[in-house]
């Protein structure tokens, strides 16, 4: 600002300075007038204070006393003090001239109920110094402490830990008609009686339950016969709709050979409580739906079984594309991940508050005979019943694919009758099992679809680019919601790819051969798979360079290959995915400690001489390598395409990138 544009505020400040100089001159503290040889004399007016009164912890109204030098020489002060419980301010400085005056202002702040006696002491150069003035204060009426509360970092849909406010009757008689209130998103409980006796206290517990990521402010109001006491309330949410994901060897370490595992930490809580267990090393899977946690990772929480009311608990045989499976009961839990919480099936879907969402507990129990007879959940010493950290390579799995429940596809419940899928079972106390049809609310839910926030329509997975040689580990971000917040908007450079009835791209074309569901092909994006499963034995050869025994592992071309796969959505959008296929054995030998690779591929076909694989008829499961260096959006079926506020509903879910 230039000197020519003095603001009004500047003028006021200049005026104040001039007034201050005038006051100093009037009070005569200057030594130039102190030339007589007389004596000072002090007078006080009034000479006493009335009894102070105030609530505990609250400063009383001030009382002032004027000090005049009635003598013929300057009055000088060496100190002006009060005893405990009282405080003073004054205008007297180090002294005043003969005939001049200054003032002392005293307040009382009780720290406990009852009466406090004290003294104001003026030490000066008058004969008989110090002069003392008796002070008396009484703590009285109702008061609250503290007078403000701040809640921070509370996840949307959850309730904070309570914070206590104490109401004190510091008076000598009861205060009556005590009433306490606040308003949402704050709530209170209290043990205050309608009539609070003299010297008694009561406690008010205040909680904050945010319903949106916007913070909130409010007031706790106590009305009673002594007046109104207020406590200012401020609440801040955990606004994070993101959580870190880590690509590493997982809980089994390097020796487990679980490369390209992508893990997250989440909390599993007893429904309706704040009793939670943190579960690290949970595999992030965009190719399945539902939270499935090893029983061994769930210590300290109590999860209600889901049953038929007749002693039969709901269990699930969860099958994966490689023939492995998880067996165990379906139970209710609150799931927290990042700043998001799934504490109930949405009310819009018929859920009720604080009952949790269905998750699967991966059990080490023996699979019932009826189940092994009828399904792929066949336990033996050989089959991969993945029910331990050693065999599962994780403490659990969070399936965040493009459906809201694990047996509802294209908006249709595929498990309304027991005849579908050998998927859900009721098991009685004797271990006998029978197949079960299961309504939507009791199926294992995609937790995203049950979040209490607005971020329920999908998620975004971002992984950093990594070198072709691989990297020891990699850290990315899982962001919940699509177009619900500023950090999950689909950029203009990306396109939406609607998926077909089977959760695949509408078509994928490689080397001029187009694969569609109609000819049993299909391509999908699957963070839970470690590899690009590609059928191209002509280019990549039939060499199985990794396997032990008969399990065909990974491609090992003599030099790294680049291939292009054109994928298209049912909505007509298309793009080309450029995939890189390195020699897996060379990669592993060069850097045995590396867990993250963007160029591992294996066959999605049976490469036998005389039976060339066909890109047209094989499923291409594009695993974690395709995710590096990309941000990929996953939209849940039944939500609006692209997270728009209105427009086309996505029947089968969509990808966007």
């Amino acid at each position, binding site marked *: 600002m230039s000197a020519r544009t003095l603001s009004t505020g500047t003028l006021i400040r200049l005026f104040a300075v001039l007034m201050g100089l005038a006051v100093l001159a009037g009070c005569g503290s200057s030594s130039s007038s102190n030339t007589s040889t007389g004596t000072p004399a002090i007078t006080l007016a009034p000479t006493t204070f009335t009894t102070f009164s105030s609530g505990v912890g609250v400063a009383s109204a001030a009382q002032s006393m004027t000090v005049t030098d009635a003598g013929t020489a300057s009055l000088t002060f060496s100190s002006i003090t009060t005893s405990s419980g009282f405080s003073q301010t004054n205008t007297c400085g180090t002294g005043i001239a003969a005939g001049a005056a200054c003032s002392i202002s005293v307040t009382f702040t009780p720290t406990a109920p009852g009466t406090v006696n004290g003294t104001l002491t003026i030490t000066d150069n008058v004969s008989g110094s110090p002069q003392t003035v008796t002070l008396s204060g009484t703590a009285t009426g109702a008061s609250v402490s503290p007078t403000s509360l701040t809640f921070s970092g509370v996840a949307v849909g959850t309730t904070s830990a309570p914070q206590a406010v104490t109401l004190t009757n510091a008076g000598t008689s009861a205060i009556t008609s005590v009433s306490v209130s606040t308003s949402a998103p704050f709530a209170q409980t209290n043990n205050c009686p309608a009539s609070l006796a003299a010297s008694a206290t009561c406690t008010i517990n205040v909680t904050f339950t945010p319903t949106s990521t916007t913070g909130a402010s409010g007031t706790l109001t106590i009305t009673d016969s002594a007046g109104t006491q207020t406590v200012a309330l401020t609440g801040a949410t955990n606004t994070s709709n993101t959580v870190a994901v880590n690509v590493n060897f997982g809980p089994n370490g390097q020796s487990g050979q*679980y490369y390209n*595992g992508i893990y997250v930490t989440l909390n599993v809580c007893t429904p309706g409580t704040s009793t939670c267990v943190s579960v690290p090393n949970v595999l992030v899977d965009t190719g*399945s739906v539902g939270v499935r946690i090893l029983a061994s990772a769930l210590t300290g929480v109590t999860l209600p079984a889901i049953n*038929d009311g007749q002693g*039969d608990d709901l269990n699930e045989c969860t*099958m*994966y*594309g*490689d*023939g492995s*499976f998880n067996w165990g009961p379906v139970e*209710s839990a609150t799931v927290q991940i990042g700043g998001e919480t799934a504490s109930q099936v949405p009310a819009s879907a018929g859920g009720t508050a604080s009952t949790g969402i269905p998750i699967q507990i991966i059990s080490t129990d023996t699979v019932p005979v009826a189940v092994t*007879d*009828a*399904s792929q959940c*066949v336990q*033996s010493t*050989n*089959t991969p019943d993945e029910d331990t950290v050693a065999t599962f390579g994780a403490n659990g799995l969070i399936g965040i694919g493009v459906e809201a429940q*694990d047996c509802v596809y294209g908006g249709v419940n*595929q498990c*309304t*009758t*027991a*005849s*579908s*899928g*050998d998927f859900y079972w*009721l098991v009685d106390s004797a271990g006998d099992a*029978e*197949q*079960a*049809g*299961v309504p939507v609310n009791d199926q294992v839910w995609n937790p995203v679809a049950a979040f209490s926030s607005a971020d329920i329509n999908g998620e975004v997975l971002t992984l950093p680019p990594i070198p072709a040689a691989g990297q020891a580990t990699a850290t990315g971000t899982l962001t919940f919601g699509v177009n619900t917040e500023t950090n999950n908007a689909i950029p203009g450079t990306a396109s939406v790819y609607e998926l077909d009835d*089977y959760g*695949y791209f509408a078509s994928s074309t490689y080397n001029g051969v187009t694969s569609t*569901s109609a000819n*049993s092909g299909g391509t999908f994006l*699957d963070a*839970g*798979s470690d590899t690009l499963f590609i059928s191209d034995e002509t280019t990549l050869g039939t060499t199985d360079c990794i*396997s*032990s*025994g*008969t*399990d*065909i*592992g990974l491609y090992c071309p003599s030099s790294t290959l680049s291939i292009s796969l054109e994928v298209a959505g049912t909505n007509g959008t298309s793009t080309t995915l450029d995939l890189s296929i390195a020699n897996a054995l060379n990669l592993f030998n060069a850097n045995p400690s590396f867990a993250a690779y963007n160029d591992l591929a*294996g066959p*999605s*076909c*049976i490469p*036998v001489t*005389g*039976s*060339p694989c066909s890109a047209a*008829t*094989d*499923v291409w*499961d594009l695993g974690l390598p395709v995710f590096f260096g990309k941000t990929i959006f996953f939209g849940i079926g039944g939500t609006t395409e692209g997270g728009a506020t209105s427009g086309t509903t996505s029947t089968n879910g969509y990808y966007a990138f």
Partner: protein
Amino acid sequence: MKRTFAVLLMLLLGSVPAWAVLGENVSTVSSDVQVLRGQHVMVAKTGYNLHQITMKDGSVVNEFVSPAGIVFGISWQSHFMPNLQQLLGAHMADLQQGQRTRVVPRRAVTIQTDNFVFSSFGHMRSFRGRSYVPGLVPANLTPEVVQ
């Protein structure tokens, strides 16, 4: 908290079903039809017969039968993993042996031995796979027909 729901349908298997069918006689196809509760259609193809079992939810299991009446291959396109024990019969042991030797957690699998070839892919909602016995594939055919 107790939630209740109806058991809408219950399947009781009166006895342990006869395992079919890969590598067995065509007569075992009927036990698959029974266990899978499907509609059965046979289509005569050049050099083999295709027995197609379509389940209530639209899932399909194909069984490929040689002129000698032996099931030499199977394939499936289904919402759920099919009952492989039922479909593979004695070759289930080959699958288990192959699965045991996996060195990494995958979500797809291919297994190949002299007398057993198997691949399985897909995700919840759509599983696809096939299996055949190389030595049983008729001489005038290639395993390519097992789709």
